[in-house]
């Protein structure tokens, strides 16, 4: 995969003279104060919980793939490492606060990420993607093979611990996930604007040029793997603890890795909001379609037929989106905003 087609992040604000931080801030305020006004248990537990977890995983992968240009198919493995590490810290270290086990879990995922990032020093593009597949299979195999990781549960399934504190119930779990996602997303958004972030982009766009300009290429690549895996690991904790509340290694299979990769491709590589837009399309749209389908046609067709038609519809939509805007939903948003600005009489 060449990286030449990936656009640089746009330095100017998408919406005219409005400062760049205003829109994200409005979204955060709405997420904290607006959504609880009308959200039902279903919205919290079945839509927002997976949406937040996968958005965060996509933010993590976007740092690695979108900004630093290293293609990875091991995202689900790093999620699994995070989930199992958090479970084991929580189980085996008494009195460790949950937040600390999550941070440690992220660090473990980060370490595993660096190890599987080592091939990136020699491999590029598709070849690197294939070597990250190793992470996918190795991690799943390890977690299945050694039942210590699942505390010797015969089925290999672990029950996630309760989040504790005030984070009980659907609303509590939502606030917990949201806070973790907001904190890490703000961190990621700041990071890509720093020298490190510029190093990522330099390595992605032209490795030789970056090396000549004094960017420490090896160090930068491994750092990208470390930070990305940390974020993806934490996303795995959210997926397991706040959404499913149970973990089995099979849930973190290759399909999940592809799902996260598609989220950032459809959402827009090298954008933070692309991760959220992509996750909305990949996670939320099928659910909305499924409910609408059952509501409208449930009495005429059985659930299998409905499910198949939804897949066709979602697949067609994705193709249409990509033809209309190959740079992803984030770029589509930008274009619409620019057009509106040109039309508006104040300009």
């Amino acid at each position: 995969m060449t990286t030449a087609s990936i656009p640089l992040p746009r330095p100017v604000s998408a919406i005219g003279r409005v400062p760049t931080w205003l829109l994200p801030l409005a979204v955060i305020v709405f997420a904290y104060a607006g959504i609880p006004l009308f959200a039902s248990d279903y919205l919290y537990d079945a839509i927002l919980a997976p949406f937040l977890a996968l958005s965060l995983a996509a933010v993590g992968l976007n740092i690695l793939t979108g900004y630093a240009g290293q293609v990875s198919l091991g995202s689900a493995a790093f999620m699994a490492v995070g989930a199992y590490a958090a479970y084991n810290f929580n189980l085996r270290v008494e009195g460790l606060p949950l937040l600390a086990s999550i941070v440690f879990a992220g660090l473990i995922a980060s370490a595993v990420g660096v190890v599987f990032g080592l091939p990136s020093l020699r491999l590029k593009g598709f070849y690197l993607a294939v070597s990250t597949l190793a992470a996918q299979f190795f991690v799943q195999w390890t977690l299945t093979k050694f039942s210590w990781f699942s505390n010797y549960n015969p089925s290999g399934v672990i029950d996630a611990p309760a989040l504790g504190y005030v984070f009980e119930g659907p609303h509590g779990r939502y606030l917990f996930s949201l806070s973790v996602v907001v904190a890490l997303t703000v961190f990621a958004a700041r990071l890509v604007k720093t020298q490190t972030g510029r190093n990522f982009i330099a390595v992605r766009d032209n490795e030789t040029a970056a090396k000549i300009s004094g960017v420490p290429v090896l160090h930068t690549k491994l750092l990208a793997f470390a930070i990305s895996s940390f974020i993806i690991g934490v996303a795995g904790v959210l997926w397991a603890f706040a959404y499913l509340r149970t973990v089995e290694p099979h849930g973190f299979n290759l399909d999940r890795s592809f799902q996260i990769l598609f989220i950032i491709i459809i959402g827009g590589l090298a954008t933070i909001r692309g991760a959220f837009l992509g996750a909305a399309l990949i996670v939320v749209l099928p659910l909305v379609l499924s409910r609408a389908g059952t509501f409208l046609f449930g009495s005429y067709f059985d659930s299998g037929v409905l499910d198949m038609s939804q897949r066709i519809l979602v697949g067609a939509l994705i193709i249409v989106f990509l033809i209309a805007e190959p740079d992803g939903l984030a770029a589509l948003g930008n274009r619409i905003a620019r057009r509106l600005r040109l039309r508006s009489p104040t300009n």
Partner: protein
Amino acid sequence: MKHYGAKTLLKGAVLSAVAAGSFATAAIADEQFFPLQSYRVGPYAAGGTGFFGGTIDYFNLINTRDGGVNGVKLTWEEGETQYEVERGVEVYERLKGRPNIAAWNPLSVGIAYAMIDRITQDRVPLITVNHGRTDSTDGRVFPYVFPLLLNPYSETSGIINYIASKEGGEEKLKGKKIVVLYHGSPYGKETIPIYELLKEKFGYEVQQIEVPHPGNEQQAQWLAIRRYKPDYVVLRGWGVMNPVAIKTAQKTGFPVDRIIGNVWSNSEEDVIPAGDAAIGYTAITTQASGADYPVLQEIVKTVYDGGKGNLEDKKRIGSVYHNLGIVNGILNVEAVRIAQKRFGNRTLTGDEVRWGFEHLQLDPKRVEELGAKGLFHSINVTWDNHEGDGLVTFQQWDGKKWNVVSDWIAPDWKLLRPIIEKSAEAYAKEKGIKIRTSEDADKVTELQGTASSAKN
């Protein structure tokens, strides 16, 4: 303008989806709702369509022939899970707010695990017929979970007992080599410790080999089996893994009559795709196949001839999965009926239905009255034994149909119970669950299941 329209459309779609959820909460009198987390697409669709088809056919029979259970109509809604945990959870969240839920029947160990905490809080029973988490048999710790008829440990014990009888007695098992080829899923792994434990008792040798999901490539596993030269291979498969195993066995020269299928490797869908390679293959079952039983005849007459049959392919009527679905329907309906005897002929709460399941005692006479004599033997669920002492039998495939080749066999419950209790007690300790007594089991909440979850 254009984008404005799209936005409004999207808003409309979201609103209607939300509305669909809230509309449904309007209560209707005298109904008992069964949310069905079914799967009709994906690698396990054969099992899903047969099983859920059978259950729905039986519900339709009760509604059409009897006008419901003592006048209480049975209703249901399906949600597609594809046997995936996160989809199962989504369907649970979607349907849990519906009024009058009687019981959940996910037919997936992974989904069942994810639901245990949730349904315990909701106080609604979770039925995992012929599968599930083994220690949930202990009703003292798992009040709302029912691995009816056959839990995985009993199944294992039944298979070992059958091999012993084939060899001519328990003492002949000593030194025999057994391979367990299991599906790489929570379901497949559930029996690993019990094969090891029975090994200590009987002195056989065992090697357990995993086949990764979905299992359409098994060359490596069967080469390993060939090197090991076992006397028997127990196939603990699911879906496409089974015919592939039987065909690969033939290719590697392992005799098919030495392969014993477990309770999820025992259907027509497992042997027909394997063709001649499957002739002589034997598998355990809790319910016989065939459409000669009175209850099936009535389903054909009342449901299928009335155009309401759930199976698209009528040839599958009376197949193993379809019959298991019917037995599952019978067990669910009888639990409701038994609970109605105590609480009245009305819509019951989830906890009241739980009481019904804990008194689900169908002796062979009652089974005959239900038109299911020979279809399954009997069940005897109590407040602390949520499995209900189901008997098993073995069937052999002759290329066209299954023939029963054994009597009804009882697994070694006495041996298994202490292991189950130990595991359940460990779970109770880890989770801080108070162990129930029979007095606790008799107390019933009259609140609707959703009321307790609304507190969250």
